[in-house]
């Protein structure tokens, strides 16, 4: 496959970036998107140019490290992570635009790498349960109804990649936050801190400079783990009832 790549290049956090165009040939449709970028970087390095910086880790779609805006869509045209996106999803001769996640809460570190520690700070402010650690308790000591366990598990599949923020027209982190609120709120262990959790997480989210949710639904469509939009309703419900949970 022969491709034209338009890639955002930015030397560091304070530098002014711009789009650069690269031509690449001989790409196999079986390659992943990141392998294609690896090939580009090999060619750039051979020419003595600075390779394109991008995040990746497991390359199995489970760590949440990779994430690129590919031709205007978070993680590209398929419902998956960037590492699990394959070149067969593109056509020979395509022009592909590659940009970092755009949100002021996710500042660009270099090229396509953004700093997502704002998500960590949201989790630190309330996305946990204050339980004693140690040996795991007997699994059946705290019964959880099956539908609640299923919903908690589905919400817990969030890998924190930030595609929801990247795809959101408001650059809001509500789907990410809603996933954690729903995950812990459905389980008995999450009840003690249910009221304080939602208040603290929303305050941190807003303070980090994320936008507000207007229920457009682009987040859920972009989510590689298919977290549904109802976690945002759940978050709003928990926030509205937070006074009751605190009593």
């Amino acid at each position: 496959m022969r491709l034209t790549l338009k890639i955002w290049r930015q030397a560091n956090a304070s530098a002014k970036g711009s789009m650069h165009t690269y031509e690449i040939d001989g790409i196999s449709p079986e390659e992943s998107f990141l392998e294609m970028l690896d090939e580009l970087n090999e060619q750039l390095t051979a020419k003595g140019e600075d390779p394109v910086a991008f995040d990746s880790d497991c390359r199995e779609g489970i760590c949440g490290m990779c994430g690129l805006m590919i031709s205007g869509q978070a993680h590209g045209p398929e419902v998956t992570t960037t590492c699990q996106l394959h070149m067969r999803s593109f056509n020979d001769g395509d022009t592909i635009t590659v940009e970092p996640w755009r949100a002021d809460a996710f500042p660009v570190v270099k090229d396509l790498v953004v700093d997502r520690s704002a998500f960590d700070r949201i989790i630190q402010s309330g996305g946990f349960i204050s339980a004693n650690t140690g040996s795991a308790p007997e699994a059946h000591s705290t019964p959880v109804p099956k539908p609640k366990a299923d919903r908690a598990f589905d919400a817990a599949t969030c890998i924190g990649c930030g595609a929801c923020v990247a795809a959101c027209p408001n650059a809001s982190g509500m789907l990410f936050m809603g996933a954690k609120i729903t995950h812990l709120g459905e389980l008995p262990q999450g009840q003690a801190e249910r009221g304080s959790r939602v208040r603290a997480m929303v305050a941190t989210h807003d303070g980090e400079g994320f936008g507000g949710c207007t229920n457009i639904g682009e987040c859920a469509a972009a989510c590689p783990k298919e977290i549904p939009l109802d976690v945002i309703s759940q978050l709003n419900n928990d926030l509205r009832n937070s006074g009751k949970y605190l009593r």
Partner: protein
Amino acid sequence: MAVTGVIFVLFVLAHMYGNLKLLSGQLAFDEYAHHLRVFGEPMLPKMGLLWIMRIVLLVSVVIHAYAAFTLWGRANNARSTRYAVHKMAQASLSSRFMRWGGVTILLFVIFHLIHFTIVKPNINADYTQAQIDASPYIMATASFKIWWVVLIYVLAMIALGMHINHGLWSATQTLGWANSPSARATAKGIALIVAALTVVGFLIPPLAVAFGLIAK
């Protein structure tokens, strides 16, 4: 935003019901308009109910617009560098038109209040100002015999319908009432039905006048 939006939807439905009385003729419509002014007397003063509604709506407009412009500003600040290419995956036309649609509706409401409440200008030369001031029925039907007035109202009602279509479903999310896929589908369905009902219900009287079905 959600609570004030629901207040507007309830008002709009009541308003639409009143408008449909145009189909019952001059006597019924003028009596309805008069009754609105003396509603609740003697418990309420003359125009009492009307002023309570006006104050509630005015306060709601201020809160709704303040929340909307705050969200708009936050969205701009949250993404100061825009994407070179950005494709929407599934966003409805209604949801994309929320902000400018809201501004459109606000401007229309100002026009509408000048048109039928504050100034009541006579824009149809076939009628006199005295006739228009004497009968709300004449006031409305005289205006809707002019094509560009009808066009303004048709466009405004389409904007309103789109705003309700996304707004009502969005309100159920904000109020935390769409906590499952089935609840989400129901909320979206109800929003679409209310939006369609609003557009059709509001456009029946002006179009009936424009096409000469009533008030010939």
